């Protein structure tokens, strides 16, 4: 979708009285959609899923981008305190059950937000994973909501061109070799020869946190 197409779609949701929100992990490539949204309507709430496990650099970058794009960023924190997120060995869940960890810190908090909106503007791209490639631009989601995927047909080159055109800032960890940045315990700086998808949940079959598999109606 082009900027004009995205703008037109957002405006039509607005005219239809739909309540919209977006979510962002504030990685460099996520900034393209945030920037587009800020050009159309910077009052749209931007939920940052603050799992508590982010790199301090990510939090600082979030604040920087929020200010630069004048975004309406809202910190979304888990309901379940970390001391209730231990396994039978007394360790935090990311050490033994990352799916459960993602559920408590990402999916469950987002599930609550989804209930109070009509449209979730979501920046997934088809070229990111097989799960995402199977998605549609508009897709039904729980609680009678709609997921709108404006970036679905964007590829890395288009992202790069937009970043360059608008001189978008870069996540500070990128220059240190991180290519995909999520929660610190499950993010790995790539060694030579590693593939991009191995930057997250390295060693596991897990490729999605649950936001795009559980909070979607197939």
């Amino acid at each position: 979708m082009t900027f004009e197409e995205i703008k037109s779609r957002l405006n039509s949701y607005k005219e239809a009285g739909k309540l919209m929100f977006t979510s962002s992990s504030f990685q460099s490539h996520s900034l393209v959609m945030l920037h587009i949204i800020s050009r159309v309507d910077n009052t749209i709430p931007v939920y940052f899923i603050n799992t508590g496990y982010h790199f301090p650099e990510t939090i600082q970058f979030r604040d920087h981008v929020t200010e630069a794009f004048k975004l309406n960023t809202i910190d979304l924190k888990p309901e379940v305190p970390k001391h209730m997120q231990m396994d039978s060995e007394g360790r935090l869940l990311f050490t033994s059950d990352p799916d459960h960890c993602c559920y408590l810190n990402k999916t469950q908090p987002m599930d609550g937000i989804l209930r109070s909106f009509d449209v979730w503007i979501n920046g997934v791209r088809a070229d990111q994973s097989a799960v995402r490639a199977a998605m549609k631009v508009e897709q039904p989601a729980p609680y009678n909501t709609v997921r709108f995927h404006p970036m679905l047909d964007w590829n890395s080159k288009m992202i790069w061109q937009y970043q360059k055109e608008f001189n978008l800032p870069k996540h500070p960890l990128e220059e240190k070799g991180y290519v995909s940045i999520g929660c610190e315990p499950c993010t790995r700086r790539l060694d030579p020869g590693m593939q991009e998808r191995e930057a997250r949940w390295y060693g596991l079959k897990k490729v999605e946190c649950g936001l795009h598999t559980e909070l979607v109606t197939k």
Partner: protein
Amino acid sequence: MNILITGGAGYIGTGLVAKLAADDAVKKIVLYDNLSRPNYGVFLGGRRPGAEKIRFYKGELLDSRHLKMVLKDIDVVYHLAAKVTTPFANADAHLYEQVNHWGTAELVYAVEESNVRKFIYASSSGVYGDSNEAVDELSLPAPKSFYAISKLRGEEHVKRLMNKRDTYIFRCGNVYGYNRGMRFDAVINKFVFEANFQKRITVHGNGNQSRAFIHIDSVATALANVLKSDLKGGVYNLVERNIKVIDIVDELKQLIPDMEFIFINQHLTLHELNVKPNETVNQKLNLGELKPLQEELREFINRFSF
């Protein structure tokens, strides 16, 4: 002024609460501690001046819900809670991470949502790793133990507060000296106990390793005085002196001449860390004249009941 001390029932907390309770500007002191050690010294010894200001909450650093509640009317936070083991801080990396890194992150998030205006974090000079040359605040951290790594990672979260709150990170030397909440696992305290009661000290390594130290009363004084001092927020070393382990033994030998000392692994040259005392900081925080070590050790021994 209302104050919260995480790890308030610990060694440093016990010293700090005594100073703060005596300060008229302080209206309330909340000790937040999970009593993991368990150390009950801060609760004992009869009513202290300012006792009515002090409250205790048994709580976890990773309990964001509880933290939010106790931070409600707090102006100043002292973050002393930590997972510490001495002498070997390399048993289970995840446990140090859990408390010292992620626990600190949780506290920082809770503070960001509160009206706290001053945040003081007790870090460790261990973040510098090894150094024969005295390091200062400009030296690059290179932590070696799991404990020190987790403390440095905690610092990274605390640093996020620096442009929002008055934020202080104090990299403290090894703490020693008597108070009711004292620990006997750290080197000087352990030596003094063994020298007095067993007349035989156990020494790790060849004894030539030196470490940076600060007396418990000095740490407590420094931390309490942050409230009144014109010291600006930042990262500071809090250290009074560097001593070789074997020199501590020598001083004790002079006080208790029939004492022996035994080396359990003198083939080992253990790592060494010297830290340059920051005279400006020590002066601004009113640490006063440094007493001779032997005098401090004598005072320490005199606190024992026999």
